[in-house]
């Protein structure tokens, strides 16, 4: 365990989303190609993610948004092209190296399903820290702080099966951010929620990401959710169409 890593969220005084230096990219992809069998999902997509930026990724259903995110996060290995994270070309690393990268540097958030149903909220959030060798007691303390930040501190001992969708998603967001990732990947994080809980989750997610300088790749088909981004990337037929 890296002792210098602080467990509680820290505040950054710079305003990272105003940075527009192209060399400041935390993550960049060049010519990504990926096919599921004979279905092409990505056909040469390139993009940059800047430090502290919240990037909304939109596009029609089936255009390749999720596949793009899975490649960027090192979950899928692209058939061609490369993904660079700082000086690391992660698209060429081994599965175990990428797995560790996802645990330490990335946070991943899906529409639903990533909480362990048998663990309590606080244990779910403490899990990534415990996986990195943080002692149970300190992992729980940090997890409690993160639950507070997402307004679900009172649910610490509740299991996900007894929570509402919005509550569960806030716990999942706390879990994705607890290890203080450099980048948060979120695929339709509010897709299963009603408009109001969706807004609540997004407001808190954006606030915390800004505070900690975390970059966010936010996939959505909802224009209101996309409006939380600093920039919008449109995916069409496996390619990045244009920027607005």
């Amino acid at each position: 365990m890296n002792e210098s890593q602080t467990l509680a969220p820290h505040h950054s005084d710079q305003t990272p989303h105003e940075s527009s230096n192209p060399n400041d990219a935390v993550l960049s992809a060049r010519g990504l190609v990926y096919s599921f069998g004979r279905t092409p999902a990505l056909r040469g997509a390139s993009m940059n993610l800047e430090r502290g930026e919240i990037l909304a990724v939109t596009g029609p259903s089936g255009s390749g948004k999720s596949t793009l995110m899975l490649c960027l996060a090192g979950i899928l290995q692209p058939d061609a092209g490369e993904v660079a994270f700082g000086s690391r070309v992660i698209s060429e690393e081994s599965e175990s190296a990428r797995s560790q990268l996802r645990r330490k540097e990335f946070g991943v958030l899906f529409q639903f399903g990533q909480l362990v149903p048998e663990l309590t909220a606080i244990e779910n959030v403490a899990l990534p820290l415990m996986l990195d060798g943080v002692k149970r007691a300190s992992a729980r303390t940090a997890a409690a702080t993160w639950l507070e930040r997402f307004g679900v501190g009172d649910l610490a001992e509740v299991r996900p099966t007894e929570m509402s969708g919005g509550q569960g998603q806030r716990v999942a967001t706390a879990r994705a951010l607890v290890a203080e990732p450099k980048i948060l990947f979120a695929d339709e994080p509010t897709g299963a929620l009603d408009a109001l809980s969706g807004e609540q989750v997004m407001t808190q997610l954006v606030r915390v990401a800004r505070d900690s300088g975390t970059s966010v790749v936010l996939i959505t088909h909802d224009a209101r959710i996309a409006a939380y981004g600093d920039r919008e990337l449109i995916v069409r037929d496996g390619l990045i169409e244009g920027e607005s």
Partner: protein
Amino acid sequence: MSGPSIETTIRLAATGGKSDRLRILLTVIGATVATIILLAAVAVLFIGPANGPYSLDVLDQPGLRPGVVTALGLLSVPVLLFVGLCSRLGAPARDRRLAAIRMAGATPRDAVRIVAAETSLATVIGGVAGTAVFFVLKAALGAEPGSALLLPTDVSIPIVAIIGVPLVLVAGTTGASLLAMRKVVVSPFGVTRSMSTKPPRVAPAILFVGGSLGLAVLGASIRGGSEASDLVLGAAGAIGFLAMAGGLIAGSASIASGTGRLLANRVQSPALLIAARRLIAAPYTASRATTAVLLAALIGGMTQGLRSNFLTATDSDDAFYRTSFDLVEGVLLVAIVIAAASLLVTTAEAVVSRRRTLASLVAGGVPRSVLRRATMAETLVPLVPTMVLALIGGSVAIRGLTGSQVEIWDSIAEGPTVVDVPIPWARLATLGAGMIGVCMALTALSLLFMRRATDISEIRAAA
């Protein structure tokens, strides 16, 4: 009777995806094995004066044959339990189908009947296959007339048994699958297995200890020269055994949740934490998986107790009892492997049915090895203490029944002398370690499903 016709029921039961086919296949295999075992028991039962001789003592001596028949009968129990557990396999897919049937207006009873129909049908197929295999084996192994036979291949099996065995099996497997479905409430919105998270602990303990004490009292009264008939004594012994077995199995759920509670608030390892929480949340899953293994452990403990008693009481040069016990242990070994097969099925089901959660954990960077260890721990952590209890409880109960001392003829003093029967610790430990080894191996085998279950595409799978 209202609801869909038998024809519709069977058609609905037999359609389905890959896991449905796997479930039906395993049920057929289980029924095939059970048929062969039961027909073998029938063959031994019908050995007449004209048959034989056999090179196996346990078959050649008429007095020992009931023991062989009982052993084979008991051997079919883990097979039936296996088939029962199979009916839970591929639950998510089938559950959705059941829910759809409910939407179409079927009642909960109809839905359960569909499951029963599927199991019965698969058992009939297995019964026919098993009968065929049995007669082929019988013809193939009984080639040399005249010389002493190894197996009773010369016995002709009565037609009643050929029809009766599959019928008994259909009743058995259908009963077992209904038992496995017992706590399932099929609603139009999907299936929820109702689960109680506080399994009973006092009643099973009373049954287990009471059964053991009952056997001790029975033993004391036999040694004291009881006048009761063999039938009464036998029935009393059977009740004592059944009480112990029932207590052990019912109590295994509370041992599972107890070990879970013990660990959940202490462990530092994420794998153990997940395992502990799963044990607390679903203690019956753990106990259902290990029922057959625990029965084998109880009987194994009893066998070791008996062996120790017999070998102390008789001339140790006499190989007869030794060989007989070796045979019993051979049968036990087969039973253990069959029993552990249910472990394989249950663990694989647990992994596959949670694939969306597991896949998203892996996507989030949780190493698969952690998930594998969690799954192993979930099975083995409660199994170890329960198995120790079963082995020791079984051998202690037999010690109570047969006494801790026996009278033997001392050839030096030329008179009877009383010696202690040793507790067979070494053999019990070996048996326990071996059983846990087999269980570990089969649980590990089920983890081969882990990679596919955690494939990223499973994140899209329905819960």
